[in-house]
């Protein structure tokens, strides 16, 4: 065998690992694990909220530093951009009048935006979570289980989940089905910061069941959509499909 063939075999060995991961059971009973699901969801939401708080503090700090730097370099009167209703007064002695504002509302620093270095914003990502079932599925041993699939999506032109039509989510889900011949599919499109997205199938399932209001029931027909299940800043669109 030549080098190229060995290289291909090595790459196949990696692909085989992916294949085996896809074969691993990722199904979870909807009924008897409710407590675990709720607990996991609570932990995930707490972590997400903490991360969002830190991100807000970091952005506010960056703005303050940028404005102070600007004030020190040019003696022009500047209204500092602030958050939390706190006004910042420049320590630099300007040659012209400095306008000091107290109890400012949370507003962007309009007067300095052109000079402030560009701040990194947290990019939004799109993720789709889909739950699949056949008549007795995903396995005969566990007819109350769902098979969970989760993937990153790109709907083109930077569209978020709010700009999708229902059939787009369903079409997408047909490509990622983890059961053969699904009879019922629940698809949830998510748009928002990557840090708020479900990190694994378990979290994805938790969020999905919560959104469907299924903690106590495995029947999607009985579900009532519950919008309080996603971390802050996450938009979602839930659609179902069934034969």
């Amino acid at each position, binding site marked *: 065998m*030549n080098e190229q063939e*060995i290289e*291909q075999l*090595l*790459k*196949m060995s990696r692909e085989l690992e992916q*294949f085996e991961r896809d074969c691993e059971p990722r199904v979870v009973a909807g009924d008897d694990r409710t407590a675990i699901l709720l607990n996991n969801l609570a932990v995930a939401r707490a972590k997400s909220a903490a991360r969002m708080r830190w991100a807000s503090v970091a952005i506010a700090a960056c703005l303050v530093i940028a404005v102070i730097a600007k004030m020190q370099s040019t003696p022009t009167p500047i209204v500092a951009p602030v958050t939390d209703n706190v006004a910042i007064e420049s320590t630099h002695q300007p040659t012209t009048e400095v306008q000091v504002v107290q109890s400012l509302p949370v507003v962007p620093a309009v007067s300095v935006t052109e000079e402030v270095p560009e701040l990194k914003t947290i990019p939004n990502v799109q993720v789709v979570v889909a739950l699949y079932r056949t008549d007795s599925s995903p396995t005969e041993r566990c007819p109350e289980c769902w098979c969970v699939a989760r993937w990153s999506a790109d709907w083109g032109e930077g569209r978020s989940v709010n700009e999708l039509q229902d059939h787009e989510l369903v079409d997408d889900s047909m490509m990622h089905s983890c059961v*053969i011949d699904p009879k019922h599919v629940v698809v949830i499109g998510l748009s928002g910061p990557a840090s708020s997205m479900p990190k694994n199938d378990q979290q994805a399932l938790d969020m999905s069941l919560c959104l469907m209001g299924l903690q106590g029931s495995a029947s999607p027909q009985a579900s009532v959509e519950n919008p309080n299940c996603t971390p802050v800043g996450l938009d979602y669109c839930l659609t179902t499909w069934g034969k």
Partner: protein
Amino acid sequence: MKQNQPDPANESALAELHERFAPGLLRFFQRKVSGGGVSSQTYGDRADELAQRTWIEFWKALQSGSYDPTRAKHSTFLYAVASIIWLRSVREEGRNSRIGVLPDSDEWLPASQADDPSHAADLASAIEVIRRVVAGAEPTAPFGDDDRVILCAVADDCSEREIAAKLGVSPSTAHERKRAVLARIADFLRGKGIDLSQNRRAQEIPPAKNQ
């Protein structure tokens, strides 16, 4: 006279294997047919069809005894069968392969061989040995930690520059070391009686007819 009746025990085993591997197999083909990108119902149907063909070949291989469970796991063998089915399908459609993993597949797996289920067993054995070598689970394999770093990098499709960065050596040194490791692993496979090129050559040379 050999009966064509399926053994109920085998059928039960196949059903169990199907239950276990069907989702992964379907995903495998979904990734292949969509090229990891656009999705559509047509692609989904194509993936279903290829998965069904794979199960048929897999079943035939089990029935014919060409699969040896001591040489490769069921998952590895099924993956090998699926890869061959995919190659065959690409060839049938007469379009360029989007397989990614096997860009030069036509040269490696000629049509005659792709139709031979025994090749799936050889392919599975080769992949199995390579996996063990990369994981350091092959005690007789003459590969050190750096060698395994190179093998992992190649499996991950890293460039030689990236391999050089991992090893802290120059790209030319990385190139030489990569070549040496690949040559050694080919020797190691041959030592284990695995040589897919030899199978290919055997297929290309028609056997002499018995007089």
